[in-house]
């Protein structure tokens, strides 16, 4: 259990570090920026309290905001993701595994439910983040391109992360 917490903290720190040093500077075709930190909220175990989801979303958001000079934007969107993640998780988790402590991953949930769950939250987060960043629906085409591009890129990264630790995930399962 303690090891799990440590590895989650490590994951969080790594994601924040990668985000502020590398991912924030990627603007693929001028539109797509990966927002990979969402992966941390995806990986929280099923027993996490809703308050922790919210607080973690908010504080990770604030830290990323501080480094990328976008005060409030990430915090507001990631905190909202923290609110809906438990619900979405409950909707996607296979019924027979509802009782025990579950660490969301391809191996515990199955590929399709996990990726659906990840895709839904990534999309929601990108919609929220870029709506707050643009703060108007005047230039809706650019906004949509940004959302679609960034969702695709973020989802791709989630896919990569998920397959980088096959050994550890198997151990968890």
């Amino acid at each position, binding site marked *: 259990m303690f090891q799990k917490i440590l590895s989650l903290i490590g994951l969080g720190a790594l994601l924040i570090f990668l985000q502020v040093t590398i991912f924030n500077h990627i603007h693929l075709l001028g539109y797509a920026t990966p927002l990979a930190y969402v992966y941390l909220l995806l990986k929280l175990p099923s027993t996490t309290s809703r*308050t922790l989801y*919210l607080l973690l979303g908010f504080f990770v958001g604030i830290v990323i905001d501080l480094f990328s000079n976008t005060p409030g934007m990430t*915090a507001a969107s990631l905190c909202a993701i923290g609110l809906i993640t438990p619900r979405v998780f409950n909707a996607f988790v296979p019924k027979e595994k509802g009782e025990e402590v579950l660490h969301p991953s391809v191996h515990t949930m199955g590929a399709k439910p996990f990726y659906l769950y990840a895709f839904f939250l990534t999309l929601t987060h990108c919609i929220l983040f870029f709506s707050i960043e643009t703060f108007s629906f005047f230039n809706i085409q650019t906004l949509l391109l940004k959302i679609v591009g960034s969702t695709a890129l973020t989802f791709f990264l989630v896919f990569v992360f998920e397959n980088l630790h096959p050994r550890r995930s198997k151990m968890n399962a």
Partner: protein
Amino acid sequence: MYHIIEFLRKYYYILIFIVLELVSFWALFRFNNYQGSVWLTSANSTVAKVNRLYFDCQTYWNLGDVNEKLAAENLRLQQENHVLREALHDTKSDGGWIDSLTNEHMKNYQYISAKVVVNSNGKKNNYMVIDRGEEDGVRKDMGVVCGTGVAGVVLLTGPNHSLVTPIINNHSDISCRIREENYFGSLQWDGKNPRIAYLDEIPRYAKIKKGGVIETSGFSSVFPPGLYVGKINSVGDSPDGQSFRLEVELGTDFNTVRDVNIITTPYKAAIDTLQSRAMRESPQEM
């Protein structure tokens, strides 16, 4: 009560969520110029709408007063008109020619009527907002008058509203003269009494009577000459002692200004071009 506590226990995380979102959005509006400015303008247009409503109501309640004043003004003007017409008739047999001359002169000035939407007084730099703007033909530096005299000068124009610098603003500077004397100076306000302004730079040899009328000089191309500004209250010395400083009781009470007219002059553009050309060319001569 029990239900409320039970509700809070079940949904306390919603409260936490709301608090965190409030903090985030506070940071968003506070530290991001773009989002902050969007927030401010949208908030401001709401404020303007409320102000507009308030002023509409106030205008309605003051209608009786305004009406009375207008009637009195009308009566005074009619009497004045009558007296002047008789005087004119006595002095010039060929009065029709003068009339046509006056009409010819005034034809070139057109008026746009407007309502004051926002009005501040009691500050050092007061301003007024009127409900006519660029789309109605209002341009920067046009003169604004009301029934009781000169009110101010247009400072900024928006599509449908304009900001006016009234006489009771520290930056207001209107060229005025004493009626029938032709001594002129600039009218300024000291930031204290909104009914009193000062006319500086009147030469010491000028013969000045208390109660004399101050009118626009027409030099600045903002106002046509001869518009009523106020009455001389008392005569004093200017700070440097070189000239007179006249205390002028303004004809316009800025506490109750509601309906104004904006004067559009066709000459203004021409005069301004000349002035700017003179400014451009004078350094080369020197």
